[in-house]
C-alpha cells in the first residue's frame, strides 16, 4: 500500500461517529460607521493613517511621508514609481525597494486588515521586501467582520491572498513590541475612493 492509502485507511478505520456540520452565521452586530472601526483597529495593530483629502497629489504626499525614499515601487497606476514594477520580475530584485504602494481590494473593520492578492501586488514579495508599505483603500469597500470577508469570492480564485494588518511585528524578546521584524517596518493606509 502507498503511504497515501495507508494513512487514509487508518483514518477511515479510526474516525469517530459522524458529527453534524453547523451553519455559520455572519454575526453582524457591528455598530457605528465601518470606517471608524477600521481606523481604530488598524492603529491598534500598529498601522498608520495618513489624511488624503480631495484634490491632493498622491505623489507629493508620498514624498512628504518618505522624504528619504530612493526607490518607490507602485503596483497601482495611481502612484508614480521611481522604478516601474515588472510583474515578471524576480522577487529578490525588489530587495532595495524603500516604499511599495498597492491598492487593496477591500478592508475589514473588525481587525483593520486589508485584502491583497497577486492581482493587487503584481509581485507578491513586494509587500514584504519593501521597507515601508502604503495601501490605498476605498472607504466604501470596508466589510464589517471576518465572516463577511471570507464571503468574498476572490478567496476562491486567488493563487495567493493575504489579510495584512499593520506592519511586520514581533514580541518574541521579553514581549517588547518591534515593528519591522522581517517584513515592512511601517504600513500606512490612505483612504482614496475609487
Amino acid at each position, binding site marked *: 500500500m*502507498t*503511504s*497515501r492509502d495507508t*494513512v*487514509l485507511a*487508518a*483514518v477511515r*478505520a*479510526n*474516525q*469517530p*461517529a459522524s*458529527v*453534524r456540520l*453547523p451553519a*455559520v*452565521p455572519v*454575526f453582524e*452586530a457591528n455598530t457605528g460607521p465601518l470606517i471608524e472601526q477600521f481606523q481604530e*483597529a488598524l492603529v491598534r*495593530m500598529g498601522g498608520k493613517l495618513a489624511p488624503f483629502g480631495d484634490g491632493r497629489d498622491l505623489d507629493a504626499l508620498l514624498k512628504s511621508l518618505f522624504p528619504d525614499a530612493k526607490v518607490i515601487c507602485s503596483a497601482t497606476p495611481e502612484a508614480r514609481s521611481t522604478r516601474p514594477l515588472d510583474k515578471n520580475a524576480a*522577487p*529578490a530584485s525588489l*530587495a532595495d525597494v524603500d516604499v511599495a504602494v498597492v491598492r487593496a481590494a477591500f478592508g475589514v473593520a473588525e*481587525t483593520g486588515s486589508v485584502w491583497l492578492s*497577486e492581482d493587487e501586488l503584481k509581485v*507578491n*514579495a513586494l*509587500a*514584504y*521586501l519593501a521597507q515601508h508599505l502604503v495601501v490605498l483603500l476605498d472607504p466604501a469597500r470596508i466589510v464589517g*467582520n*471576518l*465572516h463577511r470577508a*471570507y464571503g468574498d469570492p476572490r*478567496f476562491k480564485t*486567488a*493563487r*495567493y*491572498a*493575504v*489579510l*495584512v*494588518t499593520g*506592519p*511586520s*511585528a*514581533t*514580541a*518574541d*524578546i*521579553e*514581549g*517588547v513590541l*518591534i515593528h*519591522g*521584524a*522581517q*517584513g*515592512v517596518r511601517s504600513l500606512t493606509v490612505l483612504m482614496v475612493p475609487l
Partner: protein
Amino acid sequence: MRPVDHAEASSHFIQATAHLEFHDRRLWDLRLKRDREAHGIAEWEDLRNLASAIKEHTLSHLADYLEQFEAKASKNGAHVHWARDASEHNQVVHDILAAHSAKTLVKSKSMLTDECDMRPFLEARGIEVIETDLGERIQQLDDEPPSHIVVPAVHKLRGDVSAVFARTIGSEPGNNDVHYLAEAMRQNTRPYFLSADAGMTGANFAVAENGSFVVCTNEGNADLSANVPKLHIACIGIEKIIPKIEHLGVFIRMLSRSALGSPITQYTSHFQAPRPGTELHIVLTDNGRSQRLGMKDFWYSLKCIRCGACMNTCPVYRRSGGLSYGATYSGPIGIIIDPVFDLRKYSHLPYASTLNGSCTNVCPVKINIHEQIYKWRQIMAERNQLPLVKKEAIRIIGKVMSEPRLYRAAISATGLAIEHLPRFAVYNWLNPWGRQREVPAPPKQSFRSWYLQNRRRQ
C-alpha cells in the same frame, strides 16, 4: 528510556528567579489580553461552540475531506505528498529538496517539523536550514527546542538572547537593547531570504473546499519564505483540515485573540496555487494522528489549533517552563498529546497539572483538556507507569480510605505526627508536597470526634 522527570527539570527552572518571575508575568499578561479580547466579542461562546463542532465534524469525516483537499490542491497545480510518520516526512522533504538541488531552506515556524525533528535530518544531509521566526531562530541558534508553541523563546531574557546572538551571528556582545537585537536578526536573515533555494511553511488550516492552506504569522516571515524562493514546501498535519473557506471566519477570529490577545495576526496568508514558474509541494503528515483519532477519550485533542492559551493560563506551565516537559508540545496540550508519541517517556507528565480546569475554559475549540489529563493519569496507573513513591502512597491511601477504622486511626496519628515529629521525619523525599510548602497545622480536634461530642445525642 527513563521517563521525563518534569518535577526535577522544573526545580532547575525555578532556581533562576528573575527568569521565573518574568516568565510567569509575561504569560499571565497574555492570558489577560486574551480575556479582554474574548469579552469584547458578544458571540465569543458561540464561536467556541462553532469551532468545536466544525472540528469534530471534520475529524469524523476526515478521510473524505483529506481526499477532497488532495484532489483540489492537485488541480490547483500543487504536488501533494503523504507521510505516515516523522521519518517518512523528513525523507519526503529531503527528496523534494534533492530533486531541486536545493542547499538552503528558509522556513517559518512549524510545530510539525519540530515534532518530526526535521532540522537535524536535513542538516546531516548537507542542507542549511534557517528558521526565520525570531523566537524560533533564537532557539535554533541556542540549540534548544522551542519552549512554547507560539512564543518559542519566552523563557529567555534579553541578556540571554544577546549572548546567543553575540556567539552565533556576531552581534555586539553585551548589547541587550531589544530593538538592536531584533534588527540584528533582520539584517542577518535577509540575505538568506534573497538567496535561499527553497522556502518552507507549516499551515494553521487547510481548506478542503479549494485545496488551499492558511499560515498566520506576525513577522511576515512565512510570506517571505513562500514568495521569494522558487520552491515552496508546506508541511501539514492531517488534522489541520477544515471543510470550507467560510469556516476560516470562525477560527481566524479566535486564533490570535486566544494566543496573544490581538484581534488577528499581522499576516493571515492563503496559499492556493503556486506562482507561475514555481513549484508548491504539500506534505500531508500523519505521525500518530490517525491512531489518536481512534482513541475514544483522546481524539478531541486533534481539534487543537495550537494557540497556546492553555499554556499561558496554566499555573504549572508558567512556573516550570516549556523545556521541563522534555517534549515538542508542552503545557496542558502537551500533556494530553505527548503520551501518544511515547507512553513511557511522557508517563509523568499528567501529574504536571493541578486539574484546575482553566485550560479547558480558555480553549477556543473546547477541548476538555483537564479531563483528558485525569484520564491519562488513570492510564498511567493501569499500565504500571507510576513512580514508586506515588504508587506506594496511592496504594496505602486506597487501603486506609476504604476502611473507616484505619482512616480514623491514621487521622489522629497524622495530627500527632505533624505536631511532634522532628522536621526531617515530615519533610523528606516521601513528601514532595512539603518541599516548597509547610504542612498545615493539624486541627485540635477531628470533625468526627467533635460530632460525637456535640451532635450525636441530639
